[in-house]
């Protein structure tokens, strides 16, 4: 039994494993990784920006001590950038070399048919793995001991690209017309796809994946996350700032602060040697957690009530 098997043997093991890598997760998230490993299924992770979707994949790789291969999606991404491309330069050189040896090969051949036959007998490596430049997806399949494949922000890519993913997600293989099918080695990669929901992912893709939705954490979980990420921060301030952020999320804002913002803010406050929240300080550092001037203006008006709530609780 390998280390990975032991770790992924139960949900509680996984949860503890994540925690030791400073990633605090709910049982739902741990269950997703557990199932992904046991059933060999990719996980589609959805949720608002900044709740730790990408971080989940990174931490999983770290925990299992596997390489992380990342494919960032964007509009216009195609197979040449995602799966493989030919090394054109080398192919050209190869044809040059071939030209020179052509005479030897064809020496003594009578007539056109025989020449062509000889050519066919001559081993052709023009389209072979030597001249292939593997891109992230193919690289992931070729990893000997398995790896974690992160397909980030899959909703940013085109529809065509989604269909391209279907084969690799369900069969862990890719078909290359000139060569054939390349299958994953003994250990197929653990695949995470993340999406910010800018558009609906097609049903075909969803059907092949486990679907994990990560919402904003509740107060208790967020406190634990802050504790894990910024351990130096005093407990009282931690409680206050988490409560404050939780209050903010209830307001009608253009972009509500996510966990990553909470962490940034905690670091900022630590840097400023803060003991307890006060109006001026919060006002000065509001731009760490809110990313729109409109939101900042809205919150500014209610800052004192929010702080008094955070301190009182």
């Amino acid at each position, binding site marked *: 039994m390998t280390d990975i098997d032991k770790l992924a043997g139960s*949900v509680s093991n996984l949860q503890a494993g994540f925690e030791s890598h400073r990633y605090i997760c709910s*049982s*739902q998230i741990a*269950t*997703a990784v557990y*199932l992904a490993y*046991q*059933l060999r*299924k990719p*996980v*589609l992770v*959805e949720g608002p920006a900044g709740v730790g979707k990408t971080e989940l994949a990174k931490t999983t790789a770290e925990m299992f001590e596997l390489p992380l291969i990342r494919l960032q999606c964007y509009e216009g991404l195609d197979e040449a950038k995602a799966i493989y491309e*030919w090394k*054109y330069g080398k*192919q*050209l050189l190869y*044809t040059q070399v071939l030209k020179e040896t052509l005479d030897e090969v064809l020496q003594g051949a009578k007539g056109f048919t025989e020449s062509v036959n000889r050519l066919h007998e001559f081993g052709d490596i023009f389209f072979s793995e030597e001249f292939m430049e593997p891109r992230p997806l193919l690289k992931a399949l070729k990893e000997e001991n398995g790896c974690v494949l992160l397909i980030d922000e899959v909703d940013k890519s*085109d*529809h065509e690209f989604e269909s391209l993913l279907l084969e690799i997600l369900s069969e862990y293989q890719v078909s290359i017309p000139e060569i054939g099918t390349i299958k994953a080695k003994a250990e197929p990669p653990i695949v995470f796809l993340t999406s910010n929901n800018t*558009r*609906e992912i097609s*049903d075909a893709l*969803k*059907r092949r994946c*486990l*679907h*994990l*939705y990560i919402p904003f954490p509740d107060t208790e979980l967020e406190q634990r996350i802050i504790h894990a990420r910024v351990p130096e921060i005093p407990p009282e301030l931690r409680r206050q700032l988490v409560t404050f952020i939780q209050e903010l999320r209830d307001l009608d804002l253009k972009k509500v602060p996510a966990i990553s913002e909470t962490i940034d803010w905690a670091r900022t406050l630590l840097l400023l040697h803060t003991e307890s929240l006060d109006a001026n300080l919060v006002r000065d550092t509001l731009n760490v957690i809110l990313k729109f001037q409109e939101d900042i203006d809205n919150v500014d008006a209610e800052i004192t009530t929010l702080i008094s709530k955070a301190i009182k609780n």
Partner: protein
Amino acid sequence: MDRTLTSFIAALRNADVRISTAETLDAMSAVELCGYRNREFLKDTLALVLPKTPDEKYTFDETFDQFFAFKDVKGESVVTELDGDGEEAEGEGGAGQGQGGAVGEGTDGRKGGGKKKKFSAFEEQQDEEDLGPGEMAQPRSSLGKLLMQDSRVELTVNMAAAAKEVSLEEIQVFTQKGLYTRKIMEEMGLADLQQEISVVRQSPSILDRRLGQELKKRREWLREQVRDYVEKQFLLYADATGKKLREELLRKVKLSNIEHRNFRLVQEVVFRMAKRLVALHSRRKKVFKRGQLHVSRTLRHNMSYDGSIFDLHWKSVKIDRPKVFAICDVSGSVANYARFMLMFLYSLEEVMPKVRSFAFSSDLAEVTDLFERNKLEDAIAKTLRDYSGGSTDYGQAFEDFRNKCLDEIDNRTTIIILGDARNNYGDPRTEILKEMYDRSKRLIWLNPESRNTWNVGDAEMRKYSAYVHQAEECNSLTHLERIVGNLLRTIQ
């Protein structure tokens, strides 16, 4: 135990969660892995495999809690029991009750005791005399015997048979639940039992009276069981059919006749229609411009042919999403139609991101901002509140529109005007409409009145329809769906 899972999936499907066969198989292998022992774990697991959108997750949570609700007063983990005596559950499943009577309740007697308190409220209010434990007489009615046998399996089988007899599977709306509960009880022999209870309770013998009390307790317990059973079957078979029926009706009914209490449902229908259109049109089409060579791509692709260029690549252009201007008459008579059209247009945000909307009754104002900043329902409510007063004046509205944003109409813009064209005999100002017609790609007039009243009274439809590309009658959701669907098709 697969039967449990499949009937749970049937319940989910009934609740509008789309689950394919492949996902059912996935769920089975997942459940094999996690087992039924731990309820939370089971829920987490199934939540990962079955529902695939946040909305579906929410429905899933509700359905799961309802479906795997174990009525165990002592709070024992019945899930373990489920796993343990799977065989029994299987047997009962055969009798037609999916996840079965194994939902168990310890020993019947104690359970009955627990339930009694709750239900004595609407039974005869008299205090029970304390007869103490001890011997009691034997029941005579068949249902009474059955109840005193402590045999859950037999009772469940009996219940299922009775349910079949009264054709429970035809249950359609939730108000029928009580009716079916009573019918099943009667089918099982409630009348005889009632008779017996009232006889033995009057009896001088203490043994008889003890039996009376016990029977009464167990009758209440049975009622509870039957109610649960009906509830579950309702969840499985009926919930959606009733709803579907209503939705079917709502699609056809005139929008102005939709009652306020149905608005929520209509909204759901609108969202679903919109979602279908989005799915249909969300793929952005490319149009190839024949004649313009994409030099760099061609060179790259032809490198593998030793630089001889014969595989040509052409420049392509992605088609922009349509730009829509919606101008809605929100005066009293048309307000409801405007509500639903705006709802529809803004639900299509994903495929039509550039909707600008204007509302008028006499003066026209842009309400795009309202929709950007508020939730859909609030925005509609605010629009109707702020702009629906005043008598209709199309001339004034067109004038305002010309002053505000006629310049922004270009040959990619589609204008939709929703209104009955009843201008209170004012100046129709058709020349402005003509200007709009000339500048825009398409101008569509949607009139909620039926075609033969378009020109009756103060309606100016004849004059206006000369300057529109298309004039349509539009007064039900089906109309609306067809028109917006066409809009997306012609624009792309």
